[in-house]
């Protein structure tokens, strides 16, 4: 035993298995695990998909089992935006504004075909997919998707977060930082 170290540290350093009740990990991995298990949804509900979302968070399907039942109606208190419904062009800047008001890390689920591709509204007034204005992490097909469909999407998102795949906000932030560092042309 090395002098001056608590017994657990000494055991870890010597390569022996840690004593019972202690496990080792990296901070990064633990943060990802915690984030994946405590998603706070912000429903951006504009149509019937929002009704299906209500049943997902209600007792029967019980989203609390996935740690994502704390529905917030302020973008500042949530990190998972669920766009549930048709988004028209007039609402596009509102959607973008609300997404930008969310604090990073943040993720977006596009629920149903209207939000994902415009659905059957191939017309003069509907956005053909919300990814025209906000980055989407998981798309859920269906009109509306079943509650199981949305739960599966949330599980997919949790997998993505736990695996450490960068989210769009992260990629975007890194791209911006890189372009800030890049030498700027003078007098162009």
């Amino acid at each position, binding site marked *: 035993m090395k002098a001056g170290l608590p017994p657990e540290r000494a055991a870890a350093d010597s390569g022996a298995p840690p004593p019972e009740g202690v496990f080792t990990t990296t901070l990064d991995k633990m943060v990802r695990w915690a984030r994946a298990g405590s998603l706070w949804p912000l429903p951006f509900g504009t149509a019937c998909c929002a009704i299906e979302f209500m049943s997902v968070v209600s007792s029967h399907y019980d989203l609390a089992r996935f740690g994502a039942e704390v529905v917030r109606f302020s973008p500042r208190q949530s990190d998972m935006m669920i766009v549930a419904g048709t988004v028209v*062009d*007039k609402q596009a*800047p509102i959607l973008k504004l609300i997404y930008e008001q969310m604090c990073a890390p943040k993720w977006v689920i596009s629920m149903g075909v209207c939000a994902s591709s415009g659905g059957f509204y191939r*017309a*003069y007034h509907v956005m053909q997919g919300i990814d025209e204005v906000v980055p989407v992490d998981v798309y859920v097909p269906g009109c509306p998707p079943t509650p199981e469909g949305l739960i599966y999407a949330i599980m997919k998102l949790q997998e993505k977060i736990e695996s450490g795949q960068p989210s769009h906000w992260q990629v975007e932030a890194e791209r911006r930082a890189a372009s800030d560092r890049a030498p700027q042309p003078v007098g162009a």
Partner: protein
Amino acid sequence: MAEFVAENLRRSFGDALERVSDEHGDLTVWVDRARVHDLLEHCKRDPELDFSFCMDVTAVDYLSLGGRPRFAVVYHLYSLTTGKRVRVKTGVPEDDPVVATAVDVWKSTDWFEREVYDMFGIRFEGHPNMKRILCHRDFQGHALRKDYPADLRWKLLRPDDLLDEISSDEMQRIRARVSHPLSE
């Protein structure tokens, strides 16, 4: 069914009525555009007719029929006392798409007429706020015209002002009533 309505209108607007038809009890009256406001006012004020309820104002684009005039503005009236209905139509040419407003007769036609303007580009003269109601600020053209491409879209980059019709007095009253703790 609506005999007395047709008779009444013939008596007062005989020369301005272009066509009167009664299909299965649904009376339709085509009227000259110059007289449509007088006719609507008569429909509301005349005690025998008493069409106190303007249910809808809409328009039709007869582009593919090739006839003249291209558009028709349609008013759906209902009388709460006699239970009768009448559909008033007036032709509107493409090169001068203007009709007199009916807001001074039925206040409820305000938004209907704005919708017709938004979708068909037919302006209503004398309307207090003749602007788009459904489509956004940067939208160009009129979506329900038959020659508008069905999936042509116009992007909006900044939020449209949705409260511009509310006067500042009204806005203050609304704010005073807000009681959400986060709004303090």
